[in-house]
């Protein structure tokens, strides 16, 4: 759906994007991650043709965005970083305005707008002036605006910022419901959200692509050996040494927590050590309370990729 080829953007004195290349599959929900100032908004602005790249190309459905703007116009719905709202219009008027400057035929405007008002939870406020709405509702209106001309590709720059927890879930569900028929590319700082929604992710740091592709695959690539966490009543250094000697455990960490210890066993190789550990802990009467395997989450990966590399 989107194909980005060695995109570079140089602002006076700063290279915001440095040979960025990645792809967004048709019909997928693609998460776009990166620390502040990494170049997420810049990339999205270039994809939508709002700012020209210094070099490199962007294709949407095989149309070059810079050269054939006309052919991609109706395909894309975009929520920029700053919600583009007219404060003096009311919600209904605004959505109708956006629909009509986006080539929605007059007959369909009312139907489309009504649908969007329902699905974005704007029923309560549709006749109110946008300038008087709370931040969360403004964000919803801005989100509704992207969908009003039924685009095939929806690009959202931090869509859930400023929403209350219930609204966040609502908006997430909305994004999820877009999948399949539409392609969604969205940026977010809430990794949990990305984990819930996305099939694919791209991590960008300092204007360079750090990782891009299938989420599961990226997580798997990161898993070096197994981490097992056990809650036990009794623990000491001697036991740790014994474990390290007898089993394929490379490192043991533990902390005291209230009335028990939390012990982490790190295995160097790709072997399942849960069985050995549980057996040992039971045999030496450490009073095993629970035993879980810890998988690296997006948080760990994000941190590793953007801080360490």
């Amino acid at each position, binding site marked *: 759906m989107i194909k980005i080829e060695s995109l570079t953007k140089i602002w006076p004195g700063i290279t915001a994007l440095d040979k960025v290349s990645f792809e967004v599959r048709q019909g997928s929900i693609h998460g776009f991650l990166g620390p502040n100032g990494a170049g997420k908004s810049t990339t999205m602005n270039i994809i939508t043709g709002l700012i020209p790249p210094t070099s490199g190309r962007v294709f949407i459905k095989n149309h070059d965005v810079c050269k054939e703007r006309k052919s991609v116009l109706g395909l894309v719905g975009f929520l920029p970083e700053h919600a*583009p709202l007219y404060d*003096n219009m009311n919600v209904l008027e605004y959505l109708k305005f956006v629909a*009509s400057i986006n080539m929605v035929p007059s007959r369909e405007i009312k139907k489309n707008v009504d649908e969007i008002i329902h699905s974005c939870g704007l029923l309560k406020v549709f006749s109110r002036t946008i300038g008087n709405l709370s931040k969360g509702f403004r964000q919803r209106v801005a989100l509704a605006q992207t969908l009003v001309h039924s685009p095939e590709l929806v690009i959202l720059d931090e869509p859930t910022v400023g929403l209350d927890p219930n609204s966040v879930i609502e908006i997430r569900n909305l994004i999820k419901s877009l999948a399949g028929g539409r392609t969604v590319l969205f940026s977010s700082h809430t990794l949990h959200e990305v984990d819930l929604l996305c099939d694919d992710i791209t991590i960008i740091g300092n204007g360079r692509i750090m990782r891009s592709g299938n989420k599961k695959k990226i997580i798997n690539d990161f898993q070096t050996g197994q981490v097992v966490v056990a809650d036990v009543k009794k623990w000491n250094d001697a036991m740790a040494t014994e474990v390290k000697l007898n089993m394929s455990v490379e490192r043991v960490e533990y902390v005291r927590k209230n009335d028990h210890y939390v012990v982490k066993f790190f295995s160097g190789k790709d072997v399942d050590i849960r069985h050995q550990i549980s057996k040992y802990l039971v045999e030496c009467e450490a009073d095993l309370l629970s035993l879980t395997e810890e998988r690296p989450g997006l948080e760990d990966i994000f941190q590793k990729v953007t801080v360490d590399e």
Partner: protein
Amino acid sequence: MRLIKLRETWILFVKEIKDVFQGPLIYILTGTFCLLIGWLFFNYLLGAGRLTSLNMTSAVIVPIFGNMNFMFLFLAPMLTMRLIAGEKKAHTIELLFISNLNHFQIIVAKFMASLCMVLFMLLFTVVFPVILHLSGYSDWGTVGSAYLGMILSIMCYLSVGMFTSSLTENQIVAAFTSFGILMGLMLLVVSVNATNNWMLGNIVQYLSIPVHYESFVRGAIRSYDFVYFFSFIGFFLWLTDRSLESRNW
């Protein structure tokens, strides 16, 4: 296809008109303008003394239109300042850019909207010819051509205002810059008197808006004045287009 394009331009135009007439600025400006110009008209009328058609044209019509034109030097930048700068500030310009509107449509719709504001303000000055008519004035040709000339020269001011509005997201800066440019063009004609170079003098005269405007007020409609006005407006609208094109925020 052509019709659809017109439809979108029209929609943006209507939005601009609504924006303006829902806000207080246009009414404040119109009120001030009417008050000042009415007072001036009254004074000119008193000064004119004997009410003959010939006398009336030179004693009332010429100076009152000159004054109106001069006042729009200040008013036009205030009418145009928010057109693009305001949208940039509110980030709504992005909405227009990713919509189906092209730059040309955006510029035309906004320019026409600002022209409508001007026409709205001028609407109230129609009272003056009516009053003159009641006192026996009948040189309607001159009044008509004076209006035409004034509107054309105000359109020039508007095009400069559009351009400066597209340069910045600060409305005040936009207004002052366009006022500066317009004032500079006015002063050109003054500086002509200071130079003794005949060639230069003629060129500068041709470039200055009031020179072309004055012939209209005197009732002379010359085709090269039209050429001047429309190329002036075209040039600044083209610059606006360039400036939108080279956006880099």
